[in-house]
C-alpha cells in the first residue's frame, strides 16, 4: 500500500506543476488579449476611411471597371491562411486548417488549381506535412504585429491576383467574437466585388484622375484587409489560448482533488491495517 501512496503523491505533485504553468499561461494570454483587442480597434479608422474613399470613387462613373472590382472566370484560387506560431491554444489552428483543407479538397481536383500563402508556423508545418507547396510563408511574427511585418506577403498575394496568376484570393482566419468564441472564417478578399456606395459622400476632385487614385488605393486596401484579419486572428489566438488554459487549470484542480481523496483514503486504509495487525499480534501473544 505504501508504494501506491507514493505514486499518488508524485502524481499530485506533477499535476500541481502543470496547473501552475497553465494558470500562468492563462493570465499571460488574458493580458495579451487585451492588447490585441486594442490593436485591432486602433487599426479600424484606417480601413474604414479607405473603404469610404474607395466606395465614393467606385460609385462614381467609370470607377468600377477596375479589375480588382470585377469577377472573372476562375481557373486558380489562392488562399491566405492565418495561423499562430505556437500551439496550446485549443482548437485555434486545427479548426482553421481543417476548414481550409476541406475547402481545397472540395473545390479543386489538382494542385494547379490553387495556391496557398501562410502566416504562422503551425500552418506552415501542417501544409508541409501534406505536401502542399506554399507560395509564400511568414513565421515568427510578434504578438503585436506591425503593418510592415506582413506587407510583403500581402503585397505578393495581391500582386498575384493583379497579374492573373490566380483569379480569386480567399482569406482564412479566426474571426473574433469574444474571448470564448472564435469562428474559423473563409472570406473572399479579391475580387472585392461591388462596394456599395454609402450615403452623404462629398463630391471629390481626384488628382491626377479617379482611375489613377483607384489604382493606388485598391491594392493598399486589400493589404489593409489582410492586416486587419491578422490582428483579429491574434486576438482570437489569445482568446482561444486563454480559454484552453483556463479549462486545463480547472481540469488540473479537479484531478488534484480526486487524487488527494484517493491518497487520503489509501493512507487511512494503511493506518487501519497497521492497527489491525498490531491488535491481532497482541492477541496472539496472550
Amino acid at each position, binding site marked *: 500500500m505504501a508504494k501506491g501512496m507514493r505514486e499518488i503523491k508524485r502524481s499530485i505533485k506533477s499535476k500541481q506543476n502543470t496547473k501552475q504553468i497553465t494558470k500562468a499561461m492563462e493570465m499571460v494570454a488574458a493580458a495579451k488579449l487585451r492588447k490585441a483587442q486594442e*490593436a485591432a480597434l*486602433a*487599426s479600424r*479608422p*484606417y*480601413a474604414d*476611411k*479607405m473603404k469610404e*474613399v474607395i466606395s465614393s*470613387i467606385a460609385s462614381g462613373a467609370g470607377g468600377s471597371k477596375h479589375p480588382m472590382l470585377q469577377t472573372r472566370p476562375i481557373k486558380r484560387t489562392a488562399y491566405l491562411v492565418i495561423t499562430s506560431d505556437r500551439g496550446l491554444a485549443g482548437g485555434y489552428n486545427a479548426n482553421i486548417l481543417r476548414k481550409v483543407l476541406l475547402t481545397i479538397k472540395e473545390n479543386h481536383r489538382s494542385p494547379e488549381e490553387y495556391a496557398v500563402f501562410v502566416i504562422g508556423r503551425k500552418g506552415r508545418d501542417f501544409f508541409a506535412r501534406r505536401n502542399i507547396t506554399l507560395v509564400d510563408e511568414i513565421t515568427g511574427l510578434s504578438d503585436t504585429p*506591425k*503593418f*510592415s511585418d506582413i*506587407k510583403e506577403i500581402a503585397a505578393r498575394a495581391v500582386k498575384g491576383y493583379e497579374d492573373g496568376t490566380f483569379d480569386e484570393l480567399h482569406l482564412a482566419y479566426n474571426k473574433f467574437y469574444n474571448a470564448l468564441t472564435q469562428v474559423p472564417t473563409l472570406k473572399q478578399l479579391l475580387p472585392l466585388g461591388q462596394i456599395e456606395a454609402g450615403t452623404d459622400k*462629398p*463630391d*471629390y*476632385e*481626384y*488628382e*491626377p484622375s479617379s482611375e*489613377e*487614385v483607384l489604382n*493606388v*488605393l485598391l491594392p*493598399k486596401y486589400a493589404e*489593409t484587409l489582410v*492586416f486587419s484579419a491578422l490582428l483579429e486572428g491574434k486576438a482570437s489566438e489569445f482568446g482561444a489560448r486563454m480559454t484552453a488554459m483556463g479549462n486545463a487549470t480547472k481540469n488540473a484542480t479537479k484531478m488534484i482533488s480526486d487524487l488527494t481523496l484517493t491518497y487520503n483514503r489509501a493512507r487511512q486504509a494503511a493506518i487501519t491495517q497497521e492497527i489491525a495487525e498490531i491488535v491481532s499480534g497482541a492477541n496472539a501473544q496472550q
Partner: protein
Amino acid sequence: MSTLRLEIVTPERKVYEKDVNMVVVKGIAGELGILPNHIPLVTPLKVAPVKAKIGNTNEFIAVHGGFMEVRKDKVVILAEAAELGADIDVSRARLAKERAERRLAQKQSDINAQRAEMALLRAISRLESVIDQ
C-alpha cells in the same frame, strides 16, 4: 485665422491630430498647399515630409507614401507609416541614407535597387522633417 483639422492615420494608430492653418504635401502630381475650405480632393502622396502650419510655427511629419483626403474643414492622410519630426532618430536616418546610397552605387539587381531607392527616399524625408524644424 481659420483652421482645419489635420489627421494622420496609419494601420497601427493615429499619429497626428491637430487644428492647423495650412497643410503642405507632395502629391504624385505635384506639391499642394491646402487651406481651410478647400474643395474635396483625393490624391496619392509621394514619400515626403508633410508640413503643417500652425500660426507662425511649422510642424513636420515624415509620411511614407499613402494618400490624402481633403474635406472642407478636415484633412485626413492615410499612410502605411508616418513619424513626427520630433520622434525621428537623426543618426539612424542618416545611417540608413548612407546605406541606401551605397547600395544604389553598387548597382545590384533591379529589385534591390528599387528597394534601396525607396529606403533612400524615406531616409531623406525623415531627415528633412527634422532639419526643417
